[in-house]
């Protein structure tokens, strides 16, 4: 690692002000992606601003029939939360599939979505459930929060504070893991909601995306059979030593059908 100044932010305001004033400062939430990157010297932030002491960023609450999760809430807390397990069990299950237990004991939902790794799990839930990301400045719909590979709608001094997940009628997440990293080669989150069906895919492309053809077909008939003939084009999908774009495209179909079946 390169040397940096470690700052413990006392409040969100402090953190935002610090970020606004320091171009090369980075927020650290759980640090599960950032710290390994720094260890490889692949980034040289001037300061690390730790959000860990800001109590208002933590916690899980049942609100407006859905679940609101503070940005600094760790994966393990979402995985084990009675509220999440009761209201959106698929979300608790997804949290339990991230990384490994020691990583889930540190990694946070806010850190994960702000990082927007193309193979991360949470973006699939945020988009799949039609969640709203609340920041220090505004509310951003899940659909417009993730803008590209590792890119989000967040501004330089804008910090995620909570994520509001509406309760779906039914939802499920199916993940096909990379055998080495255990990130998603393909993860598909399917949710049936009052406003229709949402199908969100992570791992397959540079950024989480929805599959409108599947959503439309499932809105007509919510069954795995309804989407069995929908082929996902592999154009633009990720291709690496672990899986070709063609295989990923195929897996999107399989994982989507399994997620639909798991919703039943």
């Amino acid at each position, binding site marked *: 690692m390169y040397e940096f100044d*470690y700052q413990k932010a006392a409040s969100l305001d402090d953190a935002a002000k610090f970020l606004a004033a320091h171009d090369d400062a980075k927020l*650290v939430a759980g640090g599960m992606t950032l710290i390994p990157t720094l*260890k*490889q010297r692949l980034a040289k932030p001037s300061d690390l601003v730790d959000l860990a002491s800001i109590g208002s960023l933590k916690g899980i609450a049942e609100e407006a029939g859905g679940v609101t999760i503070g940005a600094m809430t760790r994966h393990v807390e979402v995985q*084990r939360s009675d509220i999440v397990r009761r209201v959106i069990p698929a979300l608790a299950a997804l949290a339990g599939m991230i990384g490994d237990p020691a990583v889930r004991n540190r990694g946070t939902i806010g850190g994960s979505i702000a990082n927007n790794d193309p193979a991360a799990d949470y973006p699939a839930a945020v988009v799949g459930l039609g969640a709203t990301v609340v920041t220090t400045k505004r509310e951003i719909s899940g659909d417009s929060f993730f803008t590209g590979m590792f890119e989000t709608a967040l501004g330089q001094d804008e910090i995620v504070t909570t994520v509001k997940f509406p309760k779906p009628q039914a939802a499920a997440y199916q993940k096909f893991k990379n055998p080495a990293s255990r990130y998603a080669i393909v993860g598909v989150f399917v949710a049936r909601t009052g406003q229709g069906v949402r199908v969100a895919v992570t791992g397959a492309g540079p950024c989480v995306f929805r599959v409108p053809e599947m959503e439309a077909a499932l809105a007509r008939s919510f069954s795995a059979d309804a989407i069995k003939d929908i082929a996902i084009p592999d154009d633009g999908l990720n291709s690496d030593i672990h899986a070709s774009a063609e295989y990923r495209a195929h897996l999107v179909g399989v994982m989507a059908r399994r997620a639909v079946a798991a919703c039943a």
Partner: protein
Amino acid sequence: MQKTVSLTVNGKPVSATVEGRTLLVQLLRETLGLTGTHVGCDTSQCGACVVHVDGEAVKSCTLLALQAEGRSVKTIEDVADGDTLHPMQEAFRDNHALQCGFCTPGMIMSALDLVKNNPDPTDREIREYLEGNFCRCTGYHNIVLAIKAGAAAMRGAPVEPHGAAAE
């Protein structure tokens, strides 16, 4: 920039001057001489460095020392009760769940974290829980047996005959 970090390590208050970039594992190994916690990779996957922070398993290679300010850290050196091995350590020994011993401290710290949350884990649950702990020697077969036996001993259940010796 050097800063002072104060925390509790194995029940004792500790203060040290560290850089921002100093990792918890460096503080433990290099400053405090607690070399039972090992470093086996750079990417937060192998689990040789797992310790408990405030009672939870974390990878000490992916935590800054300064992030542990005010917290309570427990390492493998504080698991046994004096010369008496903890039941989980005893189970590892009795089931031959270690060979070279390098992954063992992290493995035991993870096993204790698992059993705290799931006192009677199934084989499958144990295997899934070890996703973040690599062992290159044992093929995990005996580690699974050991964690089952250790969990049973910890909850006071009768100790089942150990598979390693039976073979």
